[in-house]
């Protein structure tokens, strides 16, 4: 069956609905671009605190993605390949931060890692002298919390879609478990892992609610780009639009860079 024949059978109202939907998504982007003052763009962005927020966001979101990969890969593996009682419950729990309001996530993080009222936060502080709240490490914790499920979802889907024959033949040819994991499974998994990293990173970069609730909003320490955008909207809207534009460009850049991989993955 060719694509053309399917297209010719697509009802008009579906096409119209898709058009309206795309317009709905794109109009705000246009609205943002319209607000950007292009002539003063560079001077707005090179302002000390704005630059610091941007740098902090790039560093913390990258580290958060790293945390998500290290913790998320084993979770995805277990969820996809080990059948055990309560797997559905574990999966729901892992996916919870994805649907939880981020502020609630931040409150939950305070309940666990907060210095004064957390479950293990006081121990961390009294024994190791570590205070996550109001620290850049706390930003990473908050961002990784919301980004992790996205990585797990992508990688688990990838693992389920793998053709088991490749791994089986590797085993038949005498490859040990570890070799097989690194040289066969991981290589086959690369497209979904890359996709998972991309969405996890984008989610971490845009994190607001959990970050401000758990890590606070301290200039140069925990004030990430989204927090800066929100506060700048009141004091310096032009700087807020400039910063929004940078985040938009970065995210579009990631999507474009991944386009081939995604399409390659499908066909």
């Amino acid at each position, binding site marked *: 069956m060719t694509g053309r024949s399917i297209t010719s059978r697509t009802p008009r109202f579906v096409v119209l609905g898709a058009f309206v939907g795309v317009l709905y998504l794109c109009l705000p982007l246009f609205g943002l671009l319209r607000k950007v003052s292009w002539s003063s763009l560079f001077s707005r962005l090179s302002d000390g605190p704005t630059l610091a927020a941007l740098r902090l966001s790039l560093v913390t979101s990258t580290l958060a993605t790293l945390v998500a990969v290290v913790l998320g890969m084993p979770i995805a593996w277990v969820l996809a390949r080990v059948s055990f009682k309560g797997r559905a419950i574990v999966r729901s729990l892992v996916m919870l931060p994805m649907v939880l309001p981020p*502020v609630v996530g931040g409150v939950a993080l305070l309940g666990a890692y907060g210095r004064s009222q957390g479950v293990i*936060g006081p121990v961390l502080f009294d024994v190791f002298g570590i205070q996550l709240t109001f620290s850049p490490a706390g930003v990473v914790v908050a961002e990784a919390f919301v980004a992790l499920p996205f990585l797990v979802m992508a990688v688990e889907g990838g693992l389920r879609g793998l053709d088991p024959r490749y791994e089986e033949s590797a085993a038949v040819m005498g490859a040990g478990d570890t070799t097989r994991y690194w040289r066969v499974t991981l290589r086959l998994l690369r497209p979904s892992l890359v996709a998972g990293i991309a969405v996890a990173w984008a989610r971490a970069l845009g994190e607001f609610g959990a970050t401000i609730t758990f890590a*606070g*909003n*301290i*200039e140069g320490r*925990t004030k990430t780009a989204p927090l800066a955008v929100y506060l700048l909207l*009141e*004091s310096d809207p032009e700087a807020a639009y400039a910063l929004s534009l940078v985040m938009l460009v970065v995210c579009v850049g990631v999507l474009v860079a991944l386009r081939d991989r995604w399409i390659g993955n499908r066909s």
Partner: protein
Amino acid sequence: MYVRRATSALVAVALSVGFTGCGSGAATPVRTAGLEGAITVSAAVSLTDSFTELAKQFRTDNPKVKVQLNFGSSSSLVAQIQAGAPADIMASADLGNIEKLVDSGHVVGRNYPKVFARNSMAIAVKPGNPLDIKTVADLASAKFVALCGKTVPCGIYAASVIARAGISIAESKVTRGVDAKATLGAVATGDADAAVVYYTDVVAAKKSVLVVNIPQSQNVNAVYGIAPIRGSKNLAVAEAFIAFALSDTGQKILQAYGFERL
């Protein structure tokens, strides 16, 4: 909190759009029991509890009236109104933000804005006051202090309180909340050692924080202004609500929430 407030603001806008259509067409400026229609009141976050009660009383007196409350930081509410958000009343935690609306022609009537409440600042600390903070100057010893944004009224008031005490707090120790309640929340549920916010907010959160009073000589006089907004479809109701806030009953309600009587 951020997400929930945005949603309720949307709901308020949606409801006010829906309800204003049913309002009484003949808006006669007489404050009697015959009032009818819906109004949206945009009010500073520090008015959350007092205005919720004020609106409840107002509705008991005028059963055919609906009052939608939209809370936000004063400056963001002004921006909303200037961007065309439907509001009938603006109640700000200062006079500066209302003046902005007067300048942009959004306030209707020459007698407005009217001062309807006074507030002051206070320090909120953790229960038991572990750092033994007794004065504004003691804030210098706190590890993390929560303040409102630099450009919103509660942040400006806090800055002048700190300046009057003759100390400065490094920006690397200051976490800035999106509004007065969120700033207080950094002490109540978070790890901030102290917050400088409105006295009324600290009083409202007395279960989770301890109030440290700031002497009058070091304090500020936060003057709250209220005005009806041009384009209101229920101006009579809006003006009646403002009159109610200024009345003896209204002032008593505000007083019960820690505001100073006019």
